[in-house]
């Protein structure tokens, strides 16, 4: 995924990142801490304002819902108490969405919006890393679909997403906590448990593998690297680039 990520593509924002994955492309910009409007001010913490703009048209109920999910998640990640009475503004623009996705029309308000969530979270995380805001931790997020026959699918195509029995978005913090879980469709706890293990494998650093896991998950050990590994390498690259002046 490294090649699909560009850090700081926008010159005028405090921090920005653009991500492309699975047909979606998102640009995230972070501005902050800036002055906050009086009515949004929180005495001991900074307010976080997430603005999501869809690929086509203006945002509606779906976008507001996603914004609130992202806001609640980022509130856990940003050290909000370090900047009391300020505002941190995060703007997410969906640049491209899969042609067939429901996100392109506003007619089906009830249609799933989970497939967009991981990349939104991922790009806002990277944009935050590209600013110098102090964070408590990082997080990674992934989407897992469960097909009608009960098979788990990573990186599902648009068609597979439509036919899936259930969709799950999970986000794990760098401390190993389950930061966010959004699931829809019909499933039971055992399937969710399995999804959890797959998602954890996808997200968390690969050398932290839980030794108690012995079943089917082990097949995927050959996978190149987890999302957290690639997040790390992105940051390493960024640090190397920024400290180039020191070396020469």
């Amino acid at each position, binding site marked *: 995924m490294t090649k699909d990520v560009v850090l700081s593509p926008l010159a005028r924002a405090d921090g920005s990142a653009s991500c492309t994955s699975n047909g979606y492309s998102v640009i995230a910009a972070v501005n902050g801490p800036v002055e906050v409007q009086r009515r949004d001010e929180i005495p001991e913490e900074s307010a976080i304002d997430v603005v999501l703009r869809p690929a086509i048209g203006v945002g509606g109920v779906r976008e507001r819902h996603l914004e609130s*999910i992202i806001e*609640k*998640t980022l*509130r*856990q990640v940003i050290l909000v108490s370090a900047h009391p009475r300020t505002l941190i503004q995060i703007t997410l623009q969906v640049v491209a969405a899969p042609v067939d996705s429901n996100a392109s029309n506003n*007619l*089906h*308000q009830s249609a799933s919006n989970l497939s967009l969530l991981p990349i939104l979270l991922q790009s806002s995380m990277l944009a935050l890393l590209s600013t110098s805001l102090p964070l408590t931790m990082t997080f990674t997020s992934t989407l897992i679909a469960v097909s009608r026959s009960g098979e788990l699918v990573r990186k599902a195509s648009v068609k597979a997403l439509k036919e899936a029995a259930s969709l799950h978005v999970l986000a794990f*913090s760098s*401390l190993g*906590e*389950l*930061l*966010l*879980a*959004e*699931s*829809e*469709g*019909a*499933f*039971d*706890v055992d399937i*969710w*448990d399995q999804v*959890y293990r797959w998602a954890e494998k996808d997200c968390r650093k690969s050398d932290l593998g839980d030794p108690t896991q012995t079943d089917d998950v082990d097949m995927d050990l050959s996978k190149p690297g987890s999302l957290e590994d690639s997040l790390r390498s992105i940051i390493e690259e960024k640090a190397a680039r920024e400290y180039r002046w020191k070396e020469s």
Partner: protein
Amino acid sequence: MAKQPISAAQPLSFPPSHFAKLAPRSYLHAHLSSSNGRRPSGRLPHEARKPQINTGSLTHCHGSAVVRAGDNAVVCGIRAEILNASDIVDCTPATKPEELEQRYGTDEEDSQRPEIKAYYTLHITLLVLSLSGPPFPTIWTALLSALRNTRLPKAWWDADRQSVICSPLISDSKPLRLNGLPIAMSCGVFNTEKDGAGLVSQNADGGGKDGKKWILCDTDGFEEGCCEEEITVVVRERQAASGRGMEIVRIEKCGGGVVGREEMREVVMLAEERWKVVKEAVEGSA
């Protein structure tokens, strides 16, 4: 400065309601860590409120319900209107009638005819009268109860008048067929880990690194303000083909990392218990 005898001064004290306003988190923590472990509302952490449901109170609707749970009150009214097939243009309306029929399980006479002349369209209006705590479970219960309460008049196509005629008799009307009874439960997680030592330092068991966590079922407005992490689980009875038991239709959890794998199992168990209670209330009201 001459020191006044302190013992003579009145000790500073204020009623619990002030304490709750000034330091809500400490107030909730003091309640939860007391010997009986009850919340300020007198409920146990896992105890949910039973919703009060009244159905059929709106006379102009085909189905309606008023649901109260604590300080949450929601009114739902459902009106069925007839949509002539000839009035349907290709791209509008937003949701195709077939889908509507499928989704809500509308049981209408017209669908059995060889040629479909008209559809029933359900207009659902939800009004939140008062709000305290997560609104979704109450709103959802109101919607379900109203759908269960809905009766559609018998309708047929009159060839002479070239229009759909409805029977005025209640005995001719039919209830909707619902596809299972999914019921929502929301929980909040009260976590003292993030409050520095200052906030709850008087209590030996709270605050700091080894802070305590409580999962509070069916939070009210006051508790919601103290809980960052929120979980909503919707469960229903498994549909016939895939065997007996319960299945989950939705999980929403964000705002914190306390609930992991084991805790989620616990929350789902709670939701399944809640399902029985709310089901009883919904079915009892009809």
